[in-house]
């Protein structure tokens, strides 16, 4: 039984490059995250929104135990998680999986779909029949079984993206961190993938963290939304509240930009070139 996936008081800073320190008075470290606390529970979906450069990717890296926070900690249930050798993190990797931005690029072009999906199962020592797990994961995400022996270069962009999602799901994680998982997909496929993810959350108790800059997706998928700006969580609460009455200028700007994108003002007649 896995408990909550929690980041508590996480900060992240890296040493300033030597030449930009500006002598003894310049900053020694540059901070990108400040005192972030974020709790994910099984069977819930949380959206993490923020403009680029707000620290979303760094937070995800810390949650994935790829980077060590300079303060604070990440824990799954009662066990604290830190970057370390692959062997010591197996339990965590099986519990927390990841769909990267540009999932197609995350597939080794030399490996077949079957190899790609089998690798984490083998490396994480997942129990069960791996072939069956692979087939099941592919079926769930509507990748024809006939593609098992193809390589990523022989698949379409959408197929590649689904393979990457299937790879994360094949190990049957309790939590899934998805970094813009549908950004490269066409609308019908986007719908399929999002429906699948929400049914996993509802029916199988998956805990989902959806990193996105699209508030529409956030509204559809997640009951809770956290808005990240300049390395701080400036807003955290029920999604509808964040969207309807944003309490911070950064969140308001995001909402406004998103609305302008979805409902552009009509072009006045005759103004078109």
């Amino acid at each position, binding site marked *: 039984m896995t408990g909550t996936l929690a980041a508590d008081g996480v900060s992240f800073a*890296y*040493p300033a*490059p*030597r*030449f930009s320190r500006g002598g003894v008075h310049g900053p020694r470290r540059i901070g990108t995250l400040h005192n972030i606390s974020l709790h994910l529970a099984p069977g819930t979906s949380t959206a993490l929104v923020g403009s680029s450069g707000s620290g979303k990717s760094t937070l995800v890296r810390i949650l*994935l135990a*790829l980077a060590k926070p300079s303060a604070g900690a990440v824990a799954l249930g009662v066990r604290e998680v830190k970057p370390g*050798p*692959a*062997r010591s*993190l*197996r339990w965590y*990797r*099986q519990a927390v*999986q*990841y769909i*990267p931005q*540009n999932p197609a*690029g*995350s*597939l*080794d*072009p*030399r490996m077949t779909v079957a190899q790609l999906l089998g*690798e*984490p199962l083998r*490396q*994480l020592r997942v129990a069960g029949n791996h072939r069956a797990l692979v087939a099941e994961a592919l079926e769930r995400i509507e990748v024809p079984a006939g593609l098992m022996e193809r390589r990523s*270069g022989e698949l379409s962009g959408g197929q590649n993206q689904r393979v990457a999602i299937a*790879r994360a799901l094949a190990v049957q994680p309790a939590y899934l961190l998805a970094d813009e998982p549908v950004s490269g997909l066409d609308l019908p496929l986007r719908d399929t993938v999002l429906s699948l993810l929400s049914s996993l959350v509802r029916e199988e108790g998956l805990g989902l963290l959806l990193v996105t800059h699209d508030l529409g997706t956030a509204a559809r998928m997640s009951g809770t939304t956290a808005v990240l700006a300049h390395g701080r969580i400036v807003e955290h609460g029920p999604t509808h509240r964040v969207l309807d009455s944003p309490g911070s200028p950064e969140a308001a700007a995001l909402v406004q930009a998103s609305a302008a994108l979805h409902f552009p003002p009509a072009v006045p007649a005759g103004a078109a070139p």
Partner: protein
Amino acid sequence: MPGGTAFVKVTVSRVLALVALVALIGMMPWLSGRGAEYTILRARYSDREPTPEALAAVRAELGLEQGPLPLFVSWIRGVFAGDLGTSWISNTPVAPGIASALSISVTLMAFALAAAAIIALLLCTPAVRDGLRQRRRPASGALSAALTSLPEFLLAAMLLVAGAVWLQWFPPFGWKGPEYAVLPALSLGIPAGGLIGLLMSDAIRAGFAEQWVGTWRMSGAGPVRLSAAVLRRALPAVLPQIGLVLIGLTGGAVAVEKVYAIPGLGRALLGAASAQDIPTLQAGMLALMGLALLVGTLTTAARYLLIGPAVRFGTLPLAEPPRPGNRRQLALPAAAGITLLLVVGAGLLRDPFTSDHARIAAPGWSLPFGADASGRDLLARVGHGAVGTLGTALVVVLACLAVGIVVGLFPLAAAGPLEVANAAPPILAGLVVAALSGPSAHGAAVAVAAVSWAPLAAHTAALAQEARAQPYVQILPVLGVGRARIMFRYVLPAVAWPLLRHAMLRLPGVALALAALGFLGLGPQQPSPEWGLILAEGIGYVERAPWAVLAPASALVLASVVAVGLAGAGHPARFFARNSAGAVPPPGTNVAPEHVQAPAGVR
């Protein structure tokens, strides 16, 4: 680049490499083992029998019994006190001879640098002219490539035939006045100047293509100002390689001084190596190392002055300069390769060992290349020599590939040894190995391999760095894949094929290095038909039988043309353009050294 750990690693590695090099030089008497005792016994006490007692007496006299460390300590103490030891052969202090030889070599080097500068300048002129006229065309580079392709020992032999024997414009041997320096300086300066010119004109063309040039032009910068600015822009990227070329001159000088009988440091070292006079060799190596350090420091300082704080430490030297290649440029190497194959094929059918022809018989129908001084068929010797030289080269290249891959996967820790190996000319390595274990084909191969792995390691490092930055490698930790498996299952397959290709491209170059050692007597011995050795045998008869030099020399020229042609065709962009599947990460060889950095994927 986060933190100073990379800088610390590189610095520590550099210091350790330097210490190891000095230690190697200091321990040479011990490393030379039993051979040394016999050498001294023969040299100094030719009347004594090599009985165990006599050998023990020699050991005691040399202090060899103390073991390597005390030997090294007493040597290094002496060095700091200005005492470089006593020659094992002549039993006189080493320092004065080395000092006078060094002064001659430095003079020769100055002449060579002048020649190289003039040649490089001439080669850069078209690039500057094109740039000022705003014409953008790819560098043809054919002339520079031709100049670069000839190793110094070969060029020296050919210039000797042409300038001193046929034209009789210059004296063939000796060191008595400025006219004696012309041919040797050209032999050293032509390949060096050719290479520098090639690199510089590429950099100048790239400089003129940059956007700021247009801005400057529009604000009314004149041609002189513009050329000066572009030169200033182009120079820093090329400076490290110019430094390497200059250090490489010391190796070439050994061959050139031998050919022209110049009493410089190179010839002194060669004599010391073949006589196993270790103290003289130690002193000479130390002098050369000092020279190399000086050149390295000067080029680094010059780079800092030119681009200031924009220089971040270049952890790796460049694997190979980018060369544009096209089909037309492949025609010449291909023709050279086919000719070489025909010659070798014809030669292999003939007998290289029996002396059944007249001594130095002139070429004719039955004897196309003539006969050598022992009446052996030169065509047969050149043909069979190809097999020996190229076969050894293949083994050397594969060994270098293995070492290069292992070292290249740990680029920061290996930075120091890499720089040393990259800078050390094979001829100097050959001198050391020959002095320690006696000249042999085996030793020559070891020597060439010891310094030839560096470009492959640098290439491995660059490719591995890019492979590690690929998203499909970056995600692996999340999938539970451990470090070792990432390295062997993912990174290695991604880099293996381009590396194998690169290694094969180095084959002719390695063959030439082996031939250079053979030429100097540091490689295979008589009667093996080895290209360098055949050339060395012929050079004594150059006035009466030029064909004895021409036959092996033309084979070597053909091999050189193939070598440079392959290096040009090996421009990775062409390879990757053909492999459009994207199965392999883009190449890392053709980036400026500033861009070859510690892993960029780790942020």
